[in-house]
């Protein structure tokens, strides 16, 4: 499908269906992505949510959704999605609901689930070719419990469990490639601060039938330590520095959807965030900044 409804930014929806009044932090980049995605998917969506910040979207008796929502344990949202898909299919087959009441089943989890605890359930769902969308909002840590590190935390970031002068000693897992290795129908990376790219990808995913998996980098003022007003700028810098490549996997190929002409140095992105402050003060850590730059350069050389 090449024809997109979203040619220019003016084609983006001007009304929003996600309800206001949720408990997410002011300036939450994850909520920004979720509301943009929901506008494209529409009301006939069942969200299957694993424990994380977004669990607090629906707190009985309040919900921002207009369709359905189900809460599962942290590791098992894709299994929950299987149950709902099966139930909908049975209802359709028995003609207990009409075709136009069918719903998109969307798993909504953080990176803690997607990159870690929930990975095995996701692998199984792809293996069974489950017809579902997976939306991971990636705030690079266990945000809801106070930003402990997760498998998505970038090298050198300070989290509440990596407070030393070198920050997190590990490296961010390449979930995109792990998902792609399963050869599902569609995989993409998106960002709330790039709404046109996001809209095109969600539009494409919505039209397909099978496993479709999306990772949204989600700048998190609370966990990454920056002023809420900078959420969008920091997201854009993640793209401009090449740290967050916008890409998709479709028909067996990985395509980059937005290649920065001239990549900005990674420190433009790093220095805006308190979680990397130790790389710049009291003394600049050229070695660590250089390592991060190198890994980004290496990625882009390889494509």
């Amino acid at each position, binding site marked *: 499908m090449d024809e997109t409804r979203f040619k220019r930014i003016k084609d983006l929806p*001007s009304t929003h269906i996600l309800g*206001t*009044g949720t*408990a997410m932090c002011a300036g939450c980049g994850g909520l920004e992505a979720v509301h943009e995605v929901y506008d494209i998917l529409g009301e006939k969506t069942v969200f299957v949510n694993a424990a994380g910040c977004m669990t*607090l979207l629906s707190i009985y008796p309040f919900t921002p959704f207009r369709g359905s929502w189900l809460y599962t344990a942290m590791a098992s949202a894709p299994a929950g999605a299987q149950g709902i898909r099966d139930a909908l299919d049975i209802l359709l087959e028995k003609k207990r609901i009409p075709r136009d009441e069918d719903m998109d089943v969307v798993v909504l989890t953080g990176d803690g689930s997607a990159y870690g605890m929930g990975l095995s359930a996701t692998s199984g769902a792809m293996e069974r070719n489950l017809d579902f969308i997976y939306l991971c909002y990636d705030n690079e840590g266990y945000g809801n419990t106070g930003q402990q590190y997760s498998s998505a935390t970038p090298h050198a970031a300070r989290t509440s469990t990596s407070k030393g002068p070198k920050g997190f000693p590990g490296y961010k897992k390449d979930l995109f490639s792990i998902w792609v290795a399963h050869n599902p129908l569609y995989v993409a990376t998106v960002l709330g601060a790039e709404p046109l790219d996001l809209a095109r990808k969600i539009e494409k995913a919505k039209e397909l039938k099978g496993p479709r998996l999306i990772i949204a980098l989600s700048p998190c*003022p*609370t966990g990454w330590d920056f002023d809420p007003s*900078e959420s*969008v*700028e920091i997201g854009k810098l993640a793209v401009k520095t090449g740290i967050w490549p916008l890409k998709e996997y479709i028909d067996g190929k990985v395509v980059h959807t937005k290649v920065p002409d001239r990549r900005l140095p990674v420190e433009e992105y790093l220095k805006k965030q308190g979680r990397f402050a130790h790389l710049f003060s009291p003394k600049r850590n050229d070695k660590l900044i250089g390592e991060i730059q190198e890994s980004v350069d290496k990625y882009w050389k390889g494509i």
Partner: protein
Amino acid sequence: MYRIRFHGRGGQGMKTASRILGTAFFLEGFEVQDAPRYGAERRGAPIFAYVRADREAINERGIIGRPDLVIVADESLVPIAAAGVMTGITGDTVILINSTVPPDLWQNRLNITGPILTLPMTTEVEDRLEARFIGALCAGAAVRLVDVISLKSLKAAIGRELEPLGPEIVKKNMEKALIAYNSMDGHAGCVKEGGGMKAEEYERPTWIDLPFDEAALSAPVIHGAATSELMKTGLWRTMRPLIDYDQCNRCWWLCSTFCPDGAIRINDEGYPEIDYEHCKGCMICLANCPPHAISAIPEEQAKGRSEGGKKS
């Protein structure tokens, strides 16, 4: 036993304040409990943290019902019932409010006779980069008001709690804590330990009896759409974004698309309108408006103004 509550908004450092004060008490040889009150709500929402300190083992648990000292980092929380600032306040409770309004006016407003003190940290609240020091200010003031903790322990506590943030930030916090400490000189020791609570004094909450219903009735199922709109998250805001409609060039997609909360709608003429009942004041709209048509003013000054959010 000392029972102290800090009230502020998520992101204003109330957890830090309680950590610093708790550690300072501990270094002074006290038994201590300190805890933030976690709820569903986050950055910008009313939150509180509390500290209990005693020379003997503390058997009390849970949220502090009858505080000896209440410190309010954000005065806009005082009238919000849900913030619980006034919960359990007696004639002996000392209240310290971050405010430029004089104490006697507060006494009038709140209709209480107990001691009220103010400490004007307001500029800090408006400048969000400075907001990170409010925790230290509150802890510094509390230490002076109880006056049983040495400056040495206060400094050591700040060093311990904030060390991972680097020496610069520790230093800045020390300075702020000292300013607040010194500003309370005239009231040193005015906070007295409340007595131990006896089991007989325990007040039962007013229970509502819910009959046991079948699952179809009693399971937490929500049938309405977007009921979250009943939650007025506009109360989280300390700064208010204002749109200058003469400068707005109706590009509409940016502020409205980027607003994480979907609190900016586009009217029929293509102008954005801000829903102040739900805008949390993140200022993403202000930061991303191409013609710079959006500005911000402190919520205090904005009260009663209707323009700036709706095209007239």
